């Protein structure tokens, strides 16, 4: 960490942004080399929330480690748990009942909506508009209430188990979800009016943070960051898992390669999530919510990898098992890590104020990067 503001030989100024700063993204420390107000280099200094999750999971059982992963990318915690449960189920080679799969996908899409709502409020706050934050949290609270009735927790809902879900849905779940969707559909046009069409917002976002399609693939970007550059990378479409091959939705792709494109991709994803939930909410089949598994799970010797699409991009869970009670090695391929590596490329040559706008649309959650 730099102890003082430094000026190097070419007259450039080196400043620290973070680790404690008012953008609500977490503890990220960027060492930025500036020439006047133009950025010459960004060097991320990570590790301020490195909680050694991968080492810790080597001593937890297969049922226990799933819940630590909700704390990794806590805004899409249900999707993280889904990825871990899928990997363990691949190893055990068991069949998940249809009811459990429907419930998992509906919860996934509700989590994605909640995450995008918070992103929208925080992105508007970063560029200076403070009111949308409160609008976003009002809608998010409605989703949190629905989650709390069924799963028992608002933020880190430990609801997935290997084999299905932990408990059946609350009797009010379908009714409340439909009410929420009806309410939220009237709010999305409001969001567009407030922020999307605002000329100041557009000037701050258009032509900022450009990254071409080949660079986005080379940097390993995924999720909305890559889709705004024209890369078709939605895991739900390319390698469908659970029942995503049975639902109708379009992948939202833009070709403008800039921050405004990333913003539009996420707004469109919210609409697609609403459509997915509407297709599924009335057709949840009867049946078991959990497949029968042994109380103590032991995976056979081998390696298992599963990929899901979180709200930020592609999450991969790689388990190497030696046949014991605990995993031998777990690696979490986090979407934020690769998206962050493209930040230096995107922000070079732009002004320091644009860096905040780029970070707002990259939607980074720092514990996801540091694990």
């Amino acid at each position: 960490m730099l102890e003082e503001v430094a000026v190097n030989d070419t007259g450039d100024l080196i400043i620290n942004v973070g680790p404690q700063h008012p953008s609500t993204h977490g503890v990220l420390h960027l060492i930025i080399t500036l020439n006047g107000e133009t950025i010459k280099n960004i060097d991320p200094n990570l590790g301020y929330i490195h909680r050694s999750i991968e080492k810790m999971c080597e001593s937890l059982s297969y049922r226990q480690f799933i819940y630590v992963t909700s704390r990794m990318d806590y805004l899409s915690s249900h999707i993280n748990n889904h990825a871990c449960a899928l990997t363990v189920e691949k190893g055990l080679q068991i069949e998940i009942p249809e009811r459990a799969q429907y419930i998992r996908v509906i919860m996934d899409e509700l989590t994605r909506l909640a995450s995008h709502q918070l992103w929208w409020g925080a992105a508007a706050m970063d560029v200076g508009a403070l009111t949308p934050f409160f609008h976003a949290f009002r809608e998010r609270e409605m989703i949190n209430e629905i989650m709390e009735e069924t799963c028992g927790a608002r933020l880190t809902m430990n609801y997935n188990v290997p084999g299905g879900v932990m408990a059946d849905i609350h009797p009010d779940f379908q009714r409340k979800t439909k009410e929420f969707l009806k309410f939220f559909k009237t709010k999305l046009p409001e969001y567009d009016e407030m922020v999307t069409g605002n000329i100041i917002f557009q000037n701050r976002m258009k032509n900022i943070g450009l990254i071409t399609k080949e660079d986005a693939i080379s940097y390993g970007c995924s999720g909305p960051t890559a889709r705004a550059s024209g890369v078709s990378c939605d895991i739900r479409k390319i390698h469908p898992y659970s029942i995503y091959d049975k639902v109708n939705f379009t992948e939202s792709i833009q070709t403008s390669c800039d921050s405004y494109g990333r913003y539009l991709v996420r707004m469109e994803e919210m609409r697609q999530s609403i459509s997915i939930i509407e297709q599924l909410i009335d057709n949840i089949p009867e049946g078991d919510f959990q497949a029968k598994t042994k109380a103590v799970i032991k995976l056979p010797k081998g390696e298992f990898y599963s990929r899901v699409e979180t709200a930020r991009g592609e999450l991969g869970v790689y388990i190497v098992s030696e046949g014991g009670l605990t995993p031998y090695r777990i690696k979490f391929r986090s979407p934020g890590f690769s998206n962050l590596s493209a930040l230096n490329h995107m922000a070079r040559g732009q002004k320091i104020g644009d860096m905040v706008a780029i970070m707002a649309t990259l939607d980074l959650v720092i514990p996801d990067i540091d694990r």
Partner: protein
Amino acid sequence: MDVNNKNPNQEPFPGDVHPTASGGIVVTKLDDVINWARSNSLWPLVFGTSCCAIEMMSAASAKYDWSRFGFEVARATPRQADVIIIAGTIVNKMAPVLKRLYDQMPDPKYVIAMGACATSGGPFFYNTYSVVKGADHIIPVDVYVAGCPPRPEALMHALISLQAKIKAGGRPEKMVIEHFYDKATK
């Protein structure tokens, strides 16, 4: 100049002098008024490391509004903040940063440790090489909040307890946490 440095030629003060943490003021009934004013206008520092920060943001937003209790202005700089709410895990690399932020805050300052991670390491207690097992290894804590993450109502209860602690002025027998729902039913 310390309050205990007595000039031998000076007449004794007409009141009690309590060497409090803030440097000492002459105390009579004025102390109660000052404590009341302090507790109702605490400005928190924007400091959230992980998941508990989202619940802190929920407590700040419209449904569980904490600005009803005076925590309206959340400052980004520690020089203008009174209370630091440690929302999230503290790891070895972050510990000197936290200490530096705490040192930069002007007296009187208060600390709330929110969540299981800040209280004692939380779910990351066993088999981790980089987590500080509790924020009170670094700075002194006034109020601990349990939960992973604690509900916004739990955080509000912690804020109200802190206000009661300040009003009591260091005398534990005077601490009263008013239960607003009790008053409403009477």
